[in-house]
């Protein structure tokens, strides 16, 4: 079986709250797969279900081909996990705690976690309870990556990490993938994991809003556009842009009194060809076509999903 994770109609209800609804997901072995969504979208719920920390109310799931509940330790021996909310309060030192986890796993050498700690710049002598949020997160990462896991399940792995450590984290994920391991990771924001994830599932209100490769998301993502032209040309520029498919949110920036130039901003989603064709004839003084904004693409998805659910106004989740 080449699927690392398979869920069919997976659902989880907490009281009257539907945390996860009818989720069908297939993650292939060796893939780096991202779960994206705002708080309460169902990312953490999905991960906890995979680990048998919580149990589904409907549907079924298989992790490395095994059902989590009935296979218990036999399955979890082959997994690694980083919890999203790790508030370590222990008086133990980092070394003591990692030693404990290493022995709980079995077969993890001291050298394995020491090398990882060094790579992440984690002080193993300090008491765990006194560590900063970022250092606790590093400790969580060390214990996850030291395990000889076939599947790593990482909940918000980059939260609290500075940009340098985020880079080290991305290298660790790439290394795991090079070893043939599967990685499932979650984030609020796509930008933090887009460099490593091949595919992402975007969750919203416990439902799968979209399942797409990062490349495809990027292709469909809107770019920010800025165009400058002399005041007398602005009307003509606007006319051309308004007729261009894929261009939205066209607006004139407020500018100083009597400025000779005006500035237009907009968003453009689509292939660059038609855009270039349209602006080629325009008398512009400046033009910026920014990188595709993946965050914008995800936000657009959330917004799209909201329309049929919310009758009017905003914020009505149920």
């Amino acid at each position, binding site marked *: 079986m080449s699927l690392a994770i398979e869920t069919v109609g997976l659902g989880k209800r907490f009281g009257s709250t539907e945390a996860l609804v009818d989720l069908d997901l297939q993650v292939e072995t060796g893939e780096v797969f991202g779960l994206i969504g705002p708080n309460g979208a169902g990312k953490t719920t999905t991960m906890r279900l995979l680990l048998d920390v919580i149990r589904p109310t409907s549907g079924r799931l298989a992790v490395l081909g095994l059902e989590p509940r009935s296979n*218990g330790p036999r399955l979890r021996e082959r997994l690694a996990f980083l*919890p999203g909310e790790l508030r370590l309060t222990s008086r133990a030192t980092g070394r003591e705690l990692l030693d404990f986890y290493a022995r709980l796993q079995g077969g993890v050498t001291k050298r394995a976690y020491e090398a990882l700690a060094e790579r992440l710049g984690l002080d193993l002598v300090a008491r765990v309870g006194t560590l900063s949020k970022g250092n606790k997160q590093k400790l969580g990462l060390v214990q996850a990556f030291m395990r000889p896991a076939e599947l790593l399940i990482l909940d918000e792995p980059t939260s609290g990490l500075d940009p340098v450590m985020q880079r080290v984290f991305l290298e660790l994920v790439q290394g795991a993938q090079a070893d043939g391991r599967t990685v499932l990771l979650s984030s609020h924001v796509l930008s933090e994991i887009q460099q490593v994830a091949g595919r992402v599932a975007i969750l919203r209100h416990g439902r799968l809003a979209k399942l797409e490769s990062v490349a495809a998301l990027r292709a469909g993502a809107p770019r920010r556009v800025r165009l400058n032209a002399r005041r007398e040309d602005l009307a003509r520029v606007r006319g051309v842009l308004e007729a261009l498919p894929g261009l939205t949110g066209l607006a004139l920036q407020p500018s100083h009194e009597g400025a000779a130039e005006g500035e237009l901003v907009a968003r453009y989603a689509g292939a660059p060809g038609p855009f270039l064709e349209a602006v080629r004839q325009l008398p512009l003084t400046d033009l910026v076509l920014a990188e595709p904004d993946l965050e914008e693409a995800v936000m657009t998805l959330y917004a799209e999903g909201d329309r049929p659910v919310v009758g009017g106004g905003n914020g009505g989740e149920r």
Partner: protein
Amino acid sequence: MILFTRFLRENRRSVIGWGVASASVCFLYLPFYPSMGGPELEQLMSRMPSAMLAVFGLSGPLDGVGFTHATIFGLLGTLLLILAAVGWGARAVAGDEESGALELTLSYPVTRAQVALQRALAMLVLTSVLALVVALSIVALSGPAQLNVAPVNALAASTAFWLLGLLFGLVALAAGCLSGRKGAATGAGAVAAVAAYLAQTLGNQVSGLEWLARLSPFEWAFGSEPLRFGFSAGGLGLLAALCALCVVAAVWGLQRRDVGN
């Protein structure tokens, strides 16, 4: 046994603190006996209402054995042990769960039954340390303070004391395993202890309520006056059985539910 040793190590400081406190109670109160005993005390006692004396565990004659029971097992010693045990019981699973550490532990190749059982076992060891401290303190002071407590009887009373404290700790553990809430676990342990204490006191004071005292673990532990008469298998057996029941409830409670949140 990694979970067992880890929990012991996490509570190393805590057990030293409670141990020092328990020994202090023994060494602060018991040496007063020779200066308090004799006719003056007997006179004072005879003027007090018997119900009030019973509240402090002063039912029998106030010799060295009676004094030791009243000060240590009837009052402060037992209070300290129960406080310590309930604290450990609430932290063992519910506290770990609230901090998010439990779900990480459960992602490793361990079963939930192992988590509950090994922590219950660690609580058994931690409480036994405190019971041993009290037993040794009494034995050490028995001669100098003219208490006249036979060492085997000190051991018998401390064993009852140990199981009594462990019981309320395990009530907290079980409540934590069932609910996942540290507050609920602490509350359950405390309420159980207070209820059991009241049941014994009321049962022994109010005629017609004797059956209430017989239901109380305090009565099972000390009703047979182990400090005077030695081991009593019946009471210890009941305490041990109820402890075992709490462990079963803890394992069952943790296995059946969602962890976290």
